[in-house]
């Protein structure tokens, strides 16, 4: 059976994560967002509502609210910081890199640097049931962007 000693718990609950959980950044309501998506994990009741306002095709404002465990909420909070001024394509690129990290792929130096604070979530990989928590906000992002594009082509 897989073992995780106590330091893996430390690795899971890295300072960055606990800090963002306790004082989430960008936990704000955005008026008239261009993209809004409400994502749930029905199993544990975690919830993230993501809101983005765009300007010139770039993320101008990013906000979220929700409730849930430290991993789901911290992941949303850190993500908000990393989305600012990105195009939707760049946001999707980042999302796919983060997803690959969570799925246990080895990332290049550049990719890891590009993730910044998001790299702190590496410790979650050892806890398969919590990977979903870390990805909740990113799923909201991907679904939200897809919905926005569908609406635009209509």
């Amino acid at each position, binding site marked *: 059976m897989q073992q995780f000693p106590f330091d893996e*718990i430390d690795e899971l*609950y890295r300072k960055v994560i606990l800090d963002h959980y306790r004082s989430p950044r960008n936990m704000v309501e955005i008026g008239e967002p261009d993209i809004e998506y409400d994502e749930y994990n029905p*199993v*544990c*009741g975690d919830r993230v509502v993501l809101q983005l306002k765009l300007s010139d095709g770039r993320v101008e404002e990013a906000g979220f609210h929700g*409730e*849930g465990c*430290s991993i789901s909420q911290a992941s949303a909070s850190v993500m908000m910081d990393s989305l600012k001024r990105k195009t939707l394509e760049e946001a999707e690129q980042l999302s796919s890199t983060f997803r690959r990290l969570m799925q246990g792929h080895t990332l290049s130096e550049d990719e890891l640097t590009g993730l910044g604070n998001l790299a702190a979530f590496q410790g979650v990989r050892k*806890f398969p*049931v919590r990977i979903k928590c870390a990805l909740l906000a990113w799923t909201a992002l991907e679904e939200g962007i897809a919905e926005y594009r569908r609406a635009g082509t209509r």
Partner: protein
Amino acid sequence: MTTANPRANENASGKAAGAFDVARIREDFPILKEKVHGKPLVYLDNAATSQKPRVVLDALEHYYTTENANVHRGVHYLSQQATQDYEAARGKIRQLLNASDDREIILVRGTTEGINLVAQSYGRQNIGEGDEIIISAMEHHSYIVHWQILCQERGAHLRVIPMNDDGELLMDEYEKLLGPRTKLVSIVHLSNSLGTINPVEQIIEMAHGRGVPVLIDGAQSTPHMTIDVHKMDCDFFVFSGHKLYGPTGIGALYGKADLLESMPPYQSGGDMIKSVTFEKTIYNSLPYKFEAGTPNIGGAIGLGAAIDYINGIGMDRMAAYEHELLEYGTERLSTISGLRLIGTAREKADVLSFVLRDIHPHDIGTILDSEGIAIRTGHHCTQPVMDRFSIPATARASLAFYNTREDIDALVKGIDKVIEVFS
């Protein structure tokens, strides 16, 4: 083959010897020797499912290795043997519930299927537009959903008995809800999220005063207290074998014979039919009318072995021991600063639900797991209960008679660790 553990029998006959020998009982459960993440397993998720004693595993193996055959269908030796053991299991369930007739025991997959059966069969036949079904504020999701679907289909209404801050039903409010349109009352006996033992006898008596039948969800009560459907006078009672130290996929619905007789079949298939022509089908008699298709034969036999095992120890002794353990756990958890117990009813069993400061139960669960401690976190399929207490979820430790004070101590130590990580 499905006799109780001989050592458990010894225990029972030596009742005068007094002390509950939990160390010896733990020997009967192979899984309790497992390690999780390198730590001894501390299993405190018994309300989700219980562990199985060796005698149950042996009964399953014995059935599949020496007498596997279909039931009620063959003249050959194995089929007769399997039928005999399957029906013997039904008899054991009847005795466990103190029902008077094997015809009143319908073998189903578990509580969920038993409730579905009543909703689909009795409900469709008897509940119409403007009628009302009364449930309680602490029902399991599986419950609420069946009745909601039925109500939507029929234009009927769901009425909910509220509870107080300790998690006790408000009986005055129940009295007011009972009315001329009430067609069914459906109540959980022991709440899986709060541990409350509801006053079912009183609830049933009040309903019967108005001629309303009552269904009792015994999923949690059956493993922790002596059940007597006769004395309780309930019209339906359901439970799951897997929570009663038996296998998954088997459980039973008890129903009063005259009610079951009057109800239409729930599913169609082999065994539920007496004769078929293209013009007309005659349904089989009770209980087979409700048992379509090949049943879970092995599961029933395994459940029978679990019941023998329980009888060998004695449910009253198990319950008394668990009660002591619950009191010890309540006391220990109450000393942790920032911990709030959810569910503090006077009549309570087996469940310790709590919230801890602003730490999400999910995080509590992960850290406890890393210490080998299994608890449940989340809304426990009782979201309305969580809303009632304005919390998104709880952490829940739930006990069984093979748990020990050391398990509780490990839990308390684990919670200290959680606090340390989040401090």
